[in-house]
């Protein structure tokens, strides 16, 4: 019975969200249509960087790359949480992660190599960075976050034309990525009986994965010592 009630509440919540979403469909306003294009262009640039390095005889810098435009509902929820008015300016200038790119690397060193490389690129400017790799979040989360600003051929919310857009780039290893997806699953399960214990176990797991990442890095260095 209780389960049924919860299910009902969830459904009502979802319907409410959908309705609210419909009312505010236009949080990105007329700028919404540019976002997928800008996202693709950034991904293309990073892909080019990878090929450039690969072509120079280096190993590829990352294993894979994914990108998304934050859906309007999530953006509305974020603006509300931050006490921002529901306008394109809030969504695209105050919030800087409407466009999100995730770069998944094989080794920890590759993350830093890519970060340094991105900082030297003319097509983007790093405006903020957070290194959760060398200092993980208390729950064990590890990733390197960059906010970049890119010049585009499109008008922006600050009435610049051609204008600037922001994107968040998350760089992490394969191990960090799998961990984050497991943690994400946990975050949205509210019927867990012992969340604190599970949280501790997850943290331990993060430390063990970090251990493997560092170990693989070290082995690679030892192998290259013989070169």
């Amino acid at each position, binding site marked *: 019975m209780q389960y049924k009630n919860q299910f009902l509440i969830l459904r009502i919540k979802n319907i409410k969200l959908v309705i609210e979403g419909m009312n505010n469909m236009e949080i990105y306003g007329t700028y919404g249509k540019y976002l997928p294009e800008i996202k693709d262009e950034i991904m293309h640039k990073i892909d080019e960087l990878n090929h450039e390095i690969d072509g120079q005889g280096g190993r590829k810098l990352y294993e894979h790359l994914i990108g998304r435009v934050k859906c309007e509902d999530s953006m509305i929820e974020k603006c509300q949480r931050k006490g921002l008015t529901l306008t394109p300016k809030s969504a695209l200038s105050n919030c800087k992660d409407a466009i999100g790119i995730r770069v998944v690397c094989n080794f*920890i060193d590759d993350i830093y190599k890519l970060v340094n490389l991105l900082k030297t690129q003319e097509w983007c400017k790093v405006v903020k960075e957070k290194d959760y790799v*060398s*200092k*993980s979040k208390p729950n064990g989360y590890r990733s390197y976050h960059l906010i970049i600003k890119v010049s585009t051929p499109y008008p922006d919310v600050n009435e610049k034309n051609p204008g600037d857009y922001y994107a968040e780039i998350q760089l992490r290893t394969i191990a960090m990525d799998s961990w984050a997806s497991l943690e994400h699953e946990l975050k949205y399960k509210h019927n867990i009986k012992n969340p604190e214990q599970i949280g501790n176990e997850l943290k*331990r797991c993060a*430390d*063990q994965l*970090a*251990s493997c990442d*560092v*170990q693989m*890095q*070290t*082995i690679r*260095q*030892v192998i290259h010592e013989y070169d």
Partner: protein
Amino acid sequence: MRILLAEDEKELSRVLIAAMQSTGYEVVPVYNGLEAVKEAESEIFDAMLFDVMMPVMTGIEAVQKIRAAGNQTYIIMLTAMAEVDDKVTGLDAGADDYITKPFSLKELLARLRSLERRNENYTEDTLDFGDITLVTTEQRLESYNSISLSAEETKLLNILILNSKKKLDNKTLIEHTWGKNEKIDSEMLWIYISYLRQKLQSVNAHVSIYGNKRGPYQLINNSKEDPK
């Protein structure tokens, strides 16, 4: 502590039980070697006290059987024989210590206290050095970030911390980490030193390991002005 006492002289046994119980130990008494072996097989003890000369099976035989079964419990022999050879026989059979009869209760209790100290106080759960903490029980290294260590890395870092004032050569480190029989050479030690170095770096520790492949190695604290 829970103690298995094998002593066939009823009078002596009773005195020993009373003395040990009054100190707060739990005592399980048996009266020959065979009973001792059976008890050791079925229950867990922190220490065992065995008389040597007992009916059915001697204390020496009992120790041999218990050790052969893989039991590593601390064993003290109570021996009437003060001859050097007898002590040697007992120790070689697998005993850890001996007391020659007649002995004072004070001495026996002092030895048990010493054993207790070694078991409890000398195995630290956590070790601090500079701005790092090694949680040995959980094989975890902490500083401004945390990371898991393997069993060997934990042992290696443990020795380096406990002996941070000394330069430790390859042989010493290998023996204390892997034991004598393992086929571990300096090359392998170097890889483990490299793991530790990278892990120290990954938790942003101001602690480093001095030394190259040939050894010796020493743990260095670089954060004297800036304690955590």
